[in-house]
């Protein structure tokens, strides 16, 4: 067991020109935790993900992954370290099959050279078989057997979300970042997704950070929650505490501050 927290965000700030997207936000995610970031639209949730994931370089602050400073590293390096994510507006290859999309998630584990890959022998062959086996386990886990050979673009939205999750899982991440995994879904799809997220935590032991503005699902499944509003952290705690927090109620239900 690693006693270091899986993710530490320290005094993180991000400014886009004149807009302060996040202001000195700090929080810490323990290993095996299901952690949620919530807040109204524009609160800076996705920006934090983009910083953790290396898409943005934060203006100020530090991000530690298992105690190691990863601030400002390139995205692919961060991915190789074991952080996978999904996107708010599904980023899959729409003209490829489900299987191919999932296999792409295995990229960090493929090391065969051009020659081996081209003639498909030795290491390349072994890796490919290994990858397919892992991907099949994910297919089984997410119950998408029926879609293996289907083109992603032709599938219903809820299923595409599941496939994106599958691709992230194919990286066998230590930390999984889920950006609004249930947005735009109907009640049944939402319930399914919530169950998969819980299964990921319990069966695979993966640490999960999820973003959502739908309080319902988050309150049901998260261990701990951080609430953001206009780029600042306004509350942190267990779902029950959060639900009773006057500041949070104000942010969600209170008058619009324009």
């Amino acid at each position: 067991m690693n006693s270091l927290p899986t993710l530490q965000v320290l005094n993180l700030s991000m400014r886009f020109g004149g807009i302060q997207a996040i202001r000195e936000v700090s929080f810490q995610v323990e290993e095996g935790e299901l952690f949620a970031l919530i807040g109204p639209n524009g609160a800076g949730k996705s920006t934090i993900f983009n910083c953790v994931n290396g898409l943005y370089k934060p203006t100020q602050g530090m991000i530690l992954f298992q105690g190691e400073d990863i601030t400002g590293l390139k995205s692919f390096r961060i991915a190789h370290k074991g952080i996978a994510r999904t996107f708010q507006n599904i980023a899959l290859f729409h003209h490829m099959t489900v299987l191919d999309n999932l296999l792409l998630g295995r990229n960090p584990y493929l090391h065969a050279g051009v020659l081996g890959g081209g003639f498909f022998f030795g290491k390349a062959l072994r890796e490919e078989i290994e990858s397919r086996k892992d991907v099949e386990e994910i297919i089984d886990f997410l119950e998408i057997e029926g879609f293996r050979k289907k083109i992603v673009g032709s599938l219903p939205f809820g299923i595409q979300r599941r496939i994106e999750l599958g691709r992230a899982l194919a990286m066998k991440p230590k930390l999984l970042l889920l950006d609004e995994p249930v947005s735009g879904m109907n009640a049944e799809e939402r319930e399914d997704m919530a169950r998969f997220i819980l299964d990921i935590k319990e069966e695979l032991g993966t640490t999960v950070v999820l973003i959502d503005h739908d309080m319902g699902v988050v309150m049901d499944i998260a261990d701990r929650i951080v609430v953001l509003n206009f780029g600042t952290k306004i509350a942190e705690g267990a779902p029950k505490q959060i639900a009773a927090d006057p500041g949070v109620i104000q942010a969600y239900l209170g008058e619009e501050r324009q």
Partner: protein
Amino acid sequence: MTSFPETLPGLLASNRQRFAGRTALREKELGVWKEVSWNEYYDHVKYCSLGFLALGLQKGDKVAILGDNCREWLYADLAAQAAGGTAVGVYPTNPPKQVEYVLDHSDSILVVVRDQEQADKVLEVKSRLPELRKIVVMDMKGLRHYRDPDTLSFSELESLGKEKDKASPGLFEELLGRTRPDDVALMVYTSGTTGPPKGAMLTHRNLVSLARGFSQVTEMKSEDQVVSYLPLSHIAERLVSLILALQVGYTVNFAESIDTVQESLYEIAPTVFVAVPRIWEKMHASIQIRMKDASRLKRMAYGIWIPLGRKMVDREIRGEAGSLGWTLLRTLGYWCLYRAILDKLGLLRVRVAISGSAPIAPDILKFYRALGLRISEVYGQTEGSGVSHIHHGNDTRIGSVGKPLPGVVCWLDEDGEILTRSPMVFAGYYKDPSATQAVRGDGWLHSGDVGVLGPEGYLTITDRKKAIIITSGGKNIAPSEIENRLKCSPYINEAVVIGDGRPYLTALIQIEYETVSQWAQDKNISFTTFKSLAQHPEVLELIDKEVQEANKEFSRVEGIKKFLLLDKQLDHDDEELTATLKVRRKSVETKFRDLIDSMYGRR
């Protein structure tokens, strides 16, 4: 060779001797087909059965099984029987309330569930089931952290059995020898279009006689392949995946999930295929839809060869002699079109095709026959072990359900009701002697269906006795014939004809969402949900055309004067359909009373 008792587990033991290392079952696991030999099949049943004993199962106890088809389903089924118990299949689509009803009514002491989804249903109602002792879960995914003290995994069950085997070797063989042909092997809960489900008790003698009779009149062999996909709690799939498999020794293949059946059919290319009319209709509709998007050449081939094929079938039915020309034409058609279609459906290798559990439209039968696939209709009741009549061999007379199985005597009552007597007639309904008395009190099994006996004992079913519509004009009409004709349309999923005590016939129609939405997209009709699609005036027009087309084939009084489109899909959950997706006519008529009245001008 040692002899084994005439029971299903007895057949398993003799198959282990006959076939040993040959493949008995096949299931797709992580995308790869995994095989189970008859030896392994036997061992699994053995350990599972001893595991049940370790959990306290005694002779006559009931074990419920709840979940989609898989290997463990069959292991548990046979294991319960081998231990002297009775297996009770529960439909995986049943909501918790109905699961509770079956578990409670059957006094099940153990329940074997497939996965978390089904386990949750049982856990939800467990506090109200005093008899229930343990829940065995085949796939523990998502459940490991529940730690319900009464829940164990299937592999834990088998380990219990292995321990028991070590402690007292030979116990299982002894148990096998103790099962008697008159023990109740299964209880099948009839989904019943009226009233709560009843548990029909079927004995080993019933089922073994059925297997013998059935295999005599169909050409099945141990090299055959079947795909198991209909719910195993229904007698039809139990017959195919368990009873006949034990008798004949063919291989049973399980699809990964219900969504991959089509794919699995294609991969396995079964040689024996049993389906309900709904599946045959769906495949037929899917071909028609795919034809619309096909290339011109393909559409042309379809346009030429299907009508030609139908013409050939009609000639055959009229008994006109085939000439060399027709044979040549048929062969040409096979290579030009029929073969390709059968291949796409995964039916290319099918030798024995069977349709049962509900009446099928003659038009659908003719379509498949044109492709070269002769579908045998079977007819029977759960109470008669599922099958009493079948088309023998190649003699597939369209419109008739064939002749009695060997051992079955069939008779028509004065009012035309079909009565049968055979070794397959069940032992009675569980805890319901009065209902038992009502259906087989006089020694004959009363089917509740009305039929006509033709020459050579060919039976033709008219309709359910209770469903016969008598219009206020006094005309007797069998609604199912009209409904089936309507359902031939690729755009119509379900039709309920109404008219009992009314001046004319009307129908409630549920559109086939997939095909109609495709049609709407082609026409640039915008819609958001099933409801908005069903309410669109152009859709109404489309269905009207289909209804008029169907009406042409019936006399004026039998025609549908008015119809309405349902703005919701009929559902098992809402109690409009049975678990086998048959319409509960009464429930639908009550639920849509206002709609129906509006078609007769009363509000």
